[in-house]
Each structure stands twice: as structure tokens, then as C-alpha cells.
């Protein structure tokens, strides 16, 4: 789901979580594009990391998802959200000496 963090940042050099956030909220590309006042193709290119958004668009996305910009875009690969929320748990195999 978090395509750009797994496959690389695309042409833009930026990793992003737009696809994950969109899927979590059950929003289509078209709906997000309408809310951002862009074409739906632009959302696709953003998700794949093929396009670096303007500051205005990045902040609009932040406002829309209720998150800071750095939670949506990053120069470093993102950790999976589940790992960030719950942290890493030591498995039985790791606990044994």
C-alpha cells in the first residue's frame, strides 16, 4: 500500500504516504483530486513519487488529512504505520538466549 517507501521514491526523490492515507479513509483518487483542486492523474503521480508537489499542494494535503506535512512526505523511507504506532515487539525466538 505504501508504495513509494517500498519501491523507492520515484522521479521526485520524495517518499509519501498518500496512498495509505487515502486507503484508510476510503477516498478515491478522483475525490481527493476534487478536494485538492487538481486532476486525478496528478494524485496518481504524487502517490508513485513521480511528481514533487508545490508547497501549497503539500500543505493542502496536510490540512485535508489533518496531519503535518512531514507525516505525509519524507526524504527518507517511512516505517510501516503499524510499526510506528505499536513499536517493535520482541518475538519468542529473539527472547531465547
Amino acid at each position, binding site marked *: 500500500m505504501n508504495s513509494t517507501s517500498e519501491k523507492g521514491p520515484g522521479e521526485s526523490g520524495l517518499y509519501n504516504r498518500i496512498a495509505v492515507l487515502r486507503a484508510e479513509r476510503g477516498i478515491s*483518487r478522483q475525490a481527493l483530486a476534487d478536494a485538492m483542486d487538481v486532476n486525478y492523474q*496528478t*494524485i496518481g503521480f504524487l502517490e508513485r513519487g513521480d511528481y514533487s508537489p508545490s508547497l501549497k499542494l503539500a500543505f493542502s494535503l496536510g490540512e485535508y488529512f489533518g496531519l503535518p506535512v512531514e507525516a505525509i512526505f519524507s526524504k527518507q523511507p517511512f516505517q510501516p504505520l503499524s510499526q510506528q504506532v505499536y513499536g517493535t515487539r520482541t518475538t519468542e525466538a529473539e527472547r531465547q538466549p
Partner: protein
Amino acid sequence: MIEKRIFPGISLARRKTRRRLVVGYWAFVLLLVGCASPIVFKHPTVFGVRAWVCINLIVGLTGFLGGNDRGGAVRAFQGRTAGERRTPPDYSFMTVEDVAAKIEAKEQAEKECRLDERDTNLRNAAHFKAYVFMRKSAFFVIFALIALGIPRLSRLEFLREPLLWLLLVVFLSLPQTLILWTEPDMEAPE
């Protein structure tokens, strides 16, 4: 930047398909220019049809790739329709309902062909690349003509009209071609 996902009857979502379309378009243009120019310039009236009809045909053909107006493969570069650019709306002889319908239709058309920030960047980049290509080509052609010498140019007289027509098509469709050629695969709106 691509106006429609399906045009003309084929999907433009994949870059490979778009490149085939572009190759087909340029092959057709070359064929048309190559065949039409000797006929038209030798016989200004061909089968009773004046030469300007053929010229309009070639110029009209450039609308296939879009860019200059709506209806082509690429979105209109101005982000609005040519009709709106040319004539200011005249509401003086219309009822209020007609005016409302016209404004609604205009807003819908504006929305459909509006360029967002990525489209605008892409359009500007395509025009810059086209300009650089034309500038270098012009330099090369002028340099070659001077090097060749004016007396020898009379031998190339037969190339004058086809090259002139080709130049017209290149000027009108090079940015669109670059966009169709380089734009990555498109996602579905869902």
C-alpha cells in the same frame, strides 16, 4: 495532461500505446506532406478543390494531438476553449434561463480543461524542449545552407514546399508530441 483515457477508441493510459499513436501520426503527416505538396503546388486547383483546402486539412490534422484547443489527445495548453478566447459572450438577446445554462456549460467546460500545477509545469517544460530543438535545428539548417552555397540550392528547389509544410506541422505539434511521448503510465481515477 492527457485529455482522455480513451482516444480515438484506444486507451492512452499506457505510454507504449501513446508512443505508437505518435509514431502513426508522424508517419501519416510525412506521407501527406510528401504526397500533397507536389500536387498542390503544381496544380493550385486539384480536382476543382483549391489548394487552401489541402492546407487547412494539414493544419486541421494537427488538432488530433490537441494542445491548441479541446478535443485532442492532450489538454488545451491555455486551459480554456478557443471559442472562449476568440469571442466574448453576448448575452443581450438571451433569456435568464439561457444565460444561466450557458454559464453553467462554460463553467463545466472550464473545469474539464483546466490545467493544474503539474499540467502547467509539464506544458512549460514541453514548450522549452520544443523551443531548444527548433533553435538548434534552425542553426544547423542555416549553417548547412551557407556551407552548401547559394548556387547549389536551386537543386533543392523541390524540397521547399514539403519542408515548409512540415515546419508548420512541427511548430504546431512538437510540444504535444513530447508530452505524449514522455508522460508516464496513468492510474485509474478510483
